[in-house]
C-alpha cells in the first residue's frame, strides 16, 4: 500500500514540508489532481460560463487530441526518452489517411488502417534509430520531426483536404453523443478507452513493469534479464500507432486534414506528461497523471480565454506551470536519501 511506504520513514516531528514531500513521493498523482481541482474551482468562480456542460464538453474536445498524443509520449518518457516528433507523426498520418481515401480512392476503412500502419512505421523508425543506431531520443526525434513535417508538405501539396470530401469514417471521431448539454465525442471515447488500456498494460502486465524498469535503470534492467532494446522499440512503435490514432481524432475535430496544424502539438504533448507528474528522468509516472495533465492544459487555456486573458499570456501561464511541475518533480525525487 502506498500509504505504508510514506509511513516508512516519516517521523512525527517531521516538518510539514517533509511530510508533503513524502506524501507526493508516495502518491505522485495528488499534485496534478490538486492543481486541476483548484483551477476548475477558480475559473468557475471567476466566470459563471466556465462550469457549464456545454463549456466542459468543449474543454474535453479540445484536449482529446493532445491527450492521445501525450499517452504515447508518456510511454516514451517513462523509458527516460523523449519524442519531439509526436505531433508531426499525428499530422502526417492524418494527411496520409486523407490522401489515401481522397486522392488514391481506397475505401475509408482501408485508408484509415493504412494511416495507422504508416504512423506505426514512423514510430518504429524512431525506435530503430534509438535502439540499433544508439542515438539519443532527443536527436532522433528532432531529425524525424523535421523529416515528417517536410514529407507532410510534399504529400499534401500544402493543401487542406475537407472532411466533407472524405468517407464518413474519417470524420466519425468528431461526432458526438449528447448527454444532456454535454456532448461526448467518439474521439474522446476512443481516447479514454486508450487510457484505460494503457493503464492496465503498464500496471498489470510484465511489459509495463519492464517499461518502468528500463526507464528507472536500463543497465540494471538488462542485467535482470530484460531485453531493454526490445522494450524501447515496442514503446516507440506503439507510440507511433497512438499518434496515428490521434491524427484520426484530429480529422474529426477539425473536420479536415490540414498540413498546417499541429506544430504546437509536439511540445504540448510533453507539457501534458510533465504536468501529470511523470518524471522526465524516466521510471516514474502514470498515464492517469497524463490525462490530468492534458486536462490542466485544456482547463487553463479555456478558463483564461473565458476570463478575457489574451492568447499570448495563456502560453505564459502554461509555461510557468511546466517549470513549477518540473521543479516539484526534482524536489520530490530528493526524498530518497
Amino acid at each position, binding site marked *: 500500500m502506498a500509504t505504508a511506504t510514506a509511513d*516508512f520513514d516519516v517521523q512525527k516531528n517531521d516538518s510539514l514540508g517533509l511530510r508533503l514531500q513524502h506524501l507526493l513521493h508516495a502518491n505522485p498523482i495528488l499534485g496534478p489532481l490538486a492543481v486541476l481541482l483548484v483551477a476548475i474551482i477558480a475559473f468557475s468562480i471567476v466566470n459563471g460560463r466556465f462550469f457549464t456542460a456545454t463549456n466542459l464538453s468543449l474543454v474535453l474536445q479540445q484536449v482529446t487530441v493532445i491527450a492521445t498524443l501525450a499517452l504515447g509520449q508518456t510511454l516514451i518518457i517513462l523509458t527516460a526518452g523523449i519524442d519531439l516528433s509526436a505531433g508531426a507523426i499525428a499530422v502526417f498520418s492524418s494527411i496520409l489517411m486523407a490522401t489515401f481515401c481522397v486522392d488514391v480512392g481506397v475505401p475509408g476503412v482501408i485508408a484509415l488502417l493504412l494511416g495507422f500502419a504508416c504512423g506505426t512505421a514512423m514510430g518504429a523508425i524512431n525506435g530503430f534509430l534509438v535502439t540499433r543506431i544508439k542515438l539519443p531520443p532527443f536527436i532522433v526525434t528532432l531529425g524525424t520531426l523535421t523529416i515528417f513535417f517536410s514529407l507532410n508538405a510534399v504529400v499534401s501539396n500544402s493543401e487542406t483536404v475537407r472532411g466533407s470530401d472524405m468517407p464518413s469514417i474519417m470524420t466519425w471521431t468528431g461526432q458526438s453523443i449528447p448527454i444532456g448539454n454535454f456532448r461526448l465525442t467518439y474521439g474522446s471515447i476512443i481516447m479514454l478507452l486508450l487510457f484505460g488500456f494503457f493503464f492496465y498494460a503498464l500496471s498489470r502486465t*510484465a511489459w509495463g513493469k519492464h517499461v518502468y524498469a528500463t526507464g528507472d535503470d536500463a543497465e540494471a*534492467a538488462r542485467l*535482470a534479464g530484460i531485453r531493454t532494446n526490445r522494450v524501447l522499440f515496442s514503446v516507440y512503435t506503439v507510440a507511433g500507432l497512438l499518434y496515428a490514432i490521434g491524427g484520426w481524432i484530429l480529422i474529426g475535430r477539425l473536420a479536415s486534414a490540414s498540413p498546417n496544424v499541429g506544430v504546437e502539438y509536439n511540445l504540448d504533448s510533453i507539457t501534458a506528461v510533465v504536468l501529470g507528474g511523470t518524471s522526465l528522468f524516466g*521510471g516514474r509516472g502514470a498515464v492517469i497523471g497524463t490525462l490530468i495533465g492534458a486536462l490542466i492544459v485544456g482547463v487553463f487555456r479555456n478558463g483564461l480565454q473565458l476570463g478575457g486573458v489574451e492568447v499570448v499570456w495563456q502560453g505564459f501561464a502554461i509555461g510557468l506551470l511546466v517549470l513549477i511541475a518540473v521543479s516539484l518533480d526534482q524536489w520530490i525525487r530528493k526524498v530518497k536519501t
Partner: protein
Amino acid sequence: MSSETDVNPASPRHAADQTPVLQAKGLVKKYGRVVAIDGSDLELYPGEILAVIGDNGAGKSSLIKALSGALVPDSGEIFLDGQRVQFRTPMDARSAGIETVYQTLAVAPGLDIADNLFLGREQRRPGPLGSVFRMLDRAHMRSEAKRHMSELGVATLQNIGQAVESLSGGQRQAVAVARSAAFGSKVVILDEPTAALGVKEGNRVLQLIRDVRDRGLPVILISHNMPHVFEIADRIHIQRLGRRATVITPRSHSMSEAVAIMTGAAEPPPHTA
C-alpha cells in the same frame, strides 16, 4: 593439486574428488592489446563458498562476467556439472541456473520488492486472464516474494509492496541476494555484496550468504574485504595478472599472506585447497 592435510576435516563442504559444479578452463579475454584474463581457471565445488580475491586489474570482474554470460571469452571452456556450456548473454547463464548479483545492484528502484524479485520472469494469472489479457498474478508473486524473503531470514521488511528505493543499502542487497537464491538452481555469484554497506548491514548480508550456501547452493563471492572473505569463505581463489595464482583456505593462510600473494609480494604457494 591438493594436499589432504590442508582440507579441514570438520568442513565436509569440499572434497577435491567431487565434480565441480562450475569449472572454467583457460579462459582468455582481450580488449585490443589489453589482456583482461589470460588463461584463467576456476573450480567451484558443491556446497561451498568460494571467494575470489585479487588486486585491481587482476581480472576478477572479467572472469566473473565470463561465468555469468555478461562477457563472451575469446577462448577457453566453461563446464557446468561437467557439461560444456557456452553463454552468449546473461540470460543464457540464468536459464542454466547461474544467478549473479552485480555490484551495481541490478534492482529497479522505483518498483516494489515483489516486482523486483520477479523482474524479468513475471508470472501471469492462470487461464485466459493470463494468456489473453497478460494479467500478472500479483497476489501469487507477492506471497512467493514474502516466502523467499522470510526463508532467508530477512524479517525487517514489513511490506513486500514497498518501493526498493525506500530501503537501506543492506535491505536492497538482501532483495538482490534473495532473488538470486530464489531462482538460482546451480550457482549464485555475488560481486562485492558488502562493499557499500555499514558494519551491521554487512554482517547481515554475510549471514544471508551463509544461508544461501546452507540451502545447498554453492556461492562465488568476489570481495575486496579481507575480513569478510576470511570469515565466510570455504576456499579462496587468488587471481593475479589475469590468471589464478593459487587457491588457499582461511585455515591454511593468514590474511596478510593472502594479500602478499595477491599483490605479488610473496610467491604463490601450490594450491592448498
